[in-house]
């Protein structure tokens, strides 16, 4: 059984043309905010608390990318567009990219690499603790994202490991909720969206278990 899944991982379909053509477009769309932020920063177009604005933007981009990533499978099942699966790794790596930027901006620019403060923030401030945890969970997922790593790990293990994405959806949104001062509107919206995306999986998983042919 393990080998069967592994084979499937190895033989991951490149997908039809539409997926291949659109993939670079999606890549550019997802990278564009980062390019804009760097451009705005160097050309002094950011009014206000510059570092905080960079922090908030990269954090939101990470959460948004995570939502896109988790939307792929349900969307594929609903539409039947199997080629959507070929975007999943790219989207997942964008989550890691923006989360890493977010963390580096916080430690590097906001706390200015003052290690005492970094340590204090991680151990004393729950929203940082859970944010840090979210990033740490993403690390092995990013490392095991190449096909070769997936092959080495074996399909079942790889899949189980990457189900940690669901955990990150909860921890990262909790980080967001605890970070905001008073207006919890957007964190609650993200919780709702993630609940739907994870709920769809739960429903499918339960159905799959109850159906005899799935055994």
């Amino acid at each position, binding site marked *: 059984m393990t080998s069967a899944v592994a084979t499937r991982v190895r033989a991951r379909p490149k997908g039809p043309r539409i997926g291949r053509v659109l993939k670079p477009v999606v890549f550019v769309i997802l990278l564009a905010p980062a390019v804009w932020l760097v451009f705005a920063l160097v050309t002094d177009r950011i*009014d206000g608390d510059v570092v905080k604005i960079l922090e908030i933007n990269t954090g939101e981009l990470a959460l948004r990318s995570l939502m896109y990533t988790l939307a792929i499978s349900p969307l594929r099942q609903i539409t039947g567009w199997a080629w959507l699966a070929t975007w999943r790794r790219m989207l997942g790596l964008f989550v890691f990219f923006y989360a890493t930027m977010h963390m580096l901006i916080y430690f590097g620019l906001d706390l200015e690499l003052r290690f005492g403060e970094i340590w204090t923030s991680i151990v004393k401030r729950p929203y940082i603790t859970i944010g840090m945890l979210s990033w740490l969970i993403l690390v092995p997922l990013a490392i095991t994202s190449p096909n070769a790593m997936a092959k080495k790990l074996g399909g079942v293990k790889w899949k189980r490991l990457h189900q940690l994405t669901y955990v990150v959806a909860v921890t990262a949104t909790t980080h967001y909720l605890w970070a905001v001062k008073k207006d919890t*509107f957007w964190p609650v919206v993200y919780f709702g969206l993630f609940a739907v995306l994870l709920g769809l999986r739960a429903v499918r998983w339960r159905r799959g278990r109850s159906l005899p042919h799935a055994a």
Partner: protein
Amino acid sequence: MLIRNRIEPPSSEITPEIDYLNRRQFLGVVGSIGAISATGALAEAVLGGLHPVGAQQGDEVTDEEKVTSYNNYYEFGTDKEDPKANSQQFRPRPWSVKIEGMAKKTGDMPLDDFLKPSRVEDRTYRFRCVEAWSAVIPWRGIPLADVIRRADPLPSAKYIELTTLYDPAQMPGQRRATIQWPYIEGLRLDEALNPLAFLATGMYGKTMRNQNGAPLRLVVPWKYGFKNIKAIVKIKFTDRPANTTWMKAAADEYGFYANVNPTVDHPRWSQARERKLGDILRTPTLMFNGYETQVASMYSGMDLRRNF
């Protein structure tokens, strides 16, 4: 996206043109305030306002564009760019201010009558947000002490409580219960009488912008920004401290005094350093935001860690 393009208006047009009082003129003004004895401490107090303390850190007046486009003013929305975007229809006139409570001269007064007896002053103050960003802002307005004295508080009055306008039709942020409306702030009477305490009607030599608290806002530069209540409609004299909006929202994070204090952290971040709007690197935060000589005596003997 929080980033807004800054092409219009061009910065050449928005560069503030302010006639700063020079030191000599200013000392004349101080001398003319007969009500309070013009001691050296007072001169220093107000001069401290004109020349922000901590000039060695390179204090410069912050770009007007930054101060008018990055605001905390939940009445117009919780994002920093919301106040500018959502306050343009707000009508700061006609306006009246109500004096209430333990004072002899209470009642409603049109804003112009409320302001008229006082000499309009320009004061450049450091501004420190509880979120650890800061600015240096040239305000225009009148001393709060003038208003307090005119109201003639009763001996029983120990505090003032200030209230912002509640008008969800004009203030779209009030249509959601993000914080409890209306916004309430308070000061101890001696704090309100401190020469630094100021009621601003303008900034950068112009009439106050809606997003900055038009037509009338408080400026207490030794306290965190949220104490500086905007669009004031009521000043009430009381014998107990107000249960302020942010205390009601999160009593463990925001206290009644809210004095700038680099040694007492906010539960979620350090207050030791601040970032001036537009800067990347932080600068150290000063005790009482640099106004220690003018205000510290009001808090002698108090545990500032408990009374944060």
